[in-house]
């Protein structure tokens, strides 16, 4: 039954990874901004929720506060950091370095405010329930998977049916046409950041309530998001979702063979195999340059 237990844990971890990676992939796919501070957004949202929990606020208020903090950080970065850089040149690496710098600063400020040790939020929902002999699952695992499904379907509906969503997809295809059509790529970029950042919130809260938080988590989250974006195929949101689940499951199932400190090595091995054998990713489009 060990494998079933690990597979279920893997699904829960995978759901968190999937949502976070979809957020990164949405931002990177539509704006081509390499938003390395996405991991910092995750950490900030998680710690704001933790703060609200410590302050005794009701959970919905905590969730709202986390969402506001995540969107605020994403949109502020877009407006104050990326927009000025893009105005004068905007090469991939300049944007990456700036994003990276802000990510380090946010991580350390969070560390100074909340301390650098592990913290967790304990709720009724994080207690595991026995579903079979030797198989325990907390209700949060189901919530995580449901959240991933719900947010993904919602996002697909938004991208296909609403005006802004369609414009975002068009932006990833051709910014010139977006401008010719009379839309402002910068405004759309802000929408992409708001959406992409809010997608980290469920994962951040579930992580806070299950495996716990520490400010250095941002780098791990970033490695996973990057790996999932590449494994799924750059620009493919469905790919990022599938790859997020794949990485979560692989990490968890690897525990059958390896000890827990090797989980990141498994992620790295999968990423490397994809770069080596299939750089276009699972669902990458074979675009012509």
């Amino acid at each position: 039954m060990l494998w079933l237990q690990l597979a279920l844990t893997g699904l829960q971890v995978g759901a968190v990874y999937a949502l976070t990676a979809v957020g990164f992939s949405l931002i990177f796919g539509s704006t081509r901004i390499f938003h390395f501070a996405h991991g910092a957004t995750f950490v900030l949202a998680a710690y704001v929720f933790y703060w609200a929990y410590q302050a005794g606020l009701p959970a919905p208020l905590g969730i709202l506060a986390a969402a506001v903090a995540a969107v605020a950080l994403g949109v502020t970065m877009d407006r104050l950091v990326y927009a000025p850089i893009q105005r004068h040149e905007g090469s991939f690496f300049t944007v990456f370095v700036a994003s990276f710098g802000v990510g380090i600063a946010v991580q350390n400020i969070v560390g100074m405010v909340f301390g650098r040790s592990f913290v967790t939020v304990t709720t009724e929902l994080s207690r595991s329930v026995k579903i079979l002999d030797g198989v325990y699952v907390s209700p949060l695992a189901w919530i995580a998977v449901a959240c991933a499904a719900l947010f993904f379907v919602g996002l697909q509906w938004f991208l296909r049916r609403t005006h802004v969503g369609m414009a975002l997809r068009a932006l990833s295809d051709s910014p010139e046409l977006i401008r010719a059509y009379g839309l402002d790529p910068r405004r759309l970029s802000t929408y992409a950041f708001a959406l992409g950042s809010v997608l980290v919130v469920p994962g951040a809260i579930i992580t806070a309530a299950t495996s716990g938080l520490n400010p250095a988590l941002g780098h791990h989250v970033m490695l996973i998001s990057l790996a999932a974006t590449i494994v799924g195929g750059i620009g493919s949101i469905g790919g990022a979702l599938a790859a997020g689940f794949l990485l979560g499951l692989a990490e968890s199932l690897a525990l059958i063979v390896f000890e827990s400190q090797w989980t990141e090595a498994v992620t790295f091995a999968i990423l490397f195999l994809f770069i080596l054998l299939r750089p276009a990713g699972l669902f990458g489009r074979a675009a012509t340059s």
Partner: protein
Amino acid sequence: MAAYLLNLGVLISIYSILAITLNFIMGYAGIYSLAHAVFFGVGAYAGALAAMHLSASIFVTVPVAMACAAVLSLALALPALRVRGEYFVAASLGLQVLAVTIFAEWKSVTGGIGGLIGIPPVDLFGQAVYRPASFFPLSLAVLAIVIVVTRLLVRSSFGRNLTAIRDSESAAASFGKNVPLIKTISVVISAALAAVAGTLYAGYLSFINVESFMLDTSVLVMAMVIIGGTGTSWGPILGAAILLLLPGLLSYLSFLPPTEIGAIQQTLYGLGMAILMIFRPGGLVGRGKARETKSAAKVAVGQKPPAVEAKAEGAR
């Protein structure tokens, strides 16, 4: 006081070597690596083990360390450099994370979390060099050699090939340059020279453990290059000096809690990197506007996305 300054001088020289070698691939080849501390670490462990079991002579430890780092960097570069920048950033981040686990877990070789202790001092022509007063000139001499080697490389035809690739990969390829090969060689050179810094570091401290070779170190070295000036000759050294002097200066400000100095330092250089990118992407030494990365990969909204080309390359 003199000992303190000499110690600082040794550390600045060692980190300058790291910053110069990272700048060699970042500034001239346009390859951004988050794994530089891995090669620093491999150099330190390999140099230390060679000194403990073979000979402490610098003419034994340094070649061993360089060879180990070069082989490992080949394993990273060969697959990752066939594709574009984003992939290398991701792969190097993954390697860094993996290497920390290996440094901490491979107890029979690296000593685990406890690290290696009792590393013999660097031996130069039969003389053990360990006092800061004698080690400082040695580290300066090595730094000078690294500066000369990298400048010669940058000015050679190999260096011109690198700059050509950085400015336009497709243009360089259409001139018949073997782009992946040239990039791979540059990564191997950079890693091997970073290992020299690692060997010096291990011999100087006579103790190493995983904490010196974590992602924080990779980030710190990248910050040195960027703040000093990517693609400039003196920028990385200036960056190394500034960032290593910063903790000392911060500790003079008595109102800062001493336990938070590290975090405050990281926050400052994080924000420094972001602000420089907005106002002065060339760094402190570089020109006002970045000329080096301008055409490397235009990703601005409104430019042709490079990832499309990456996918095209991958799909082939």
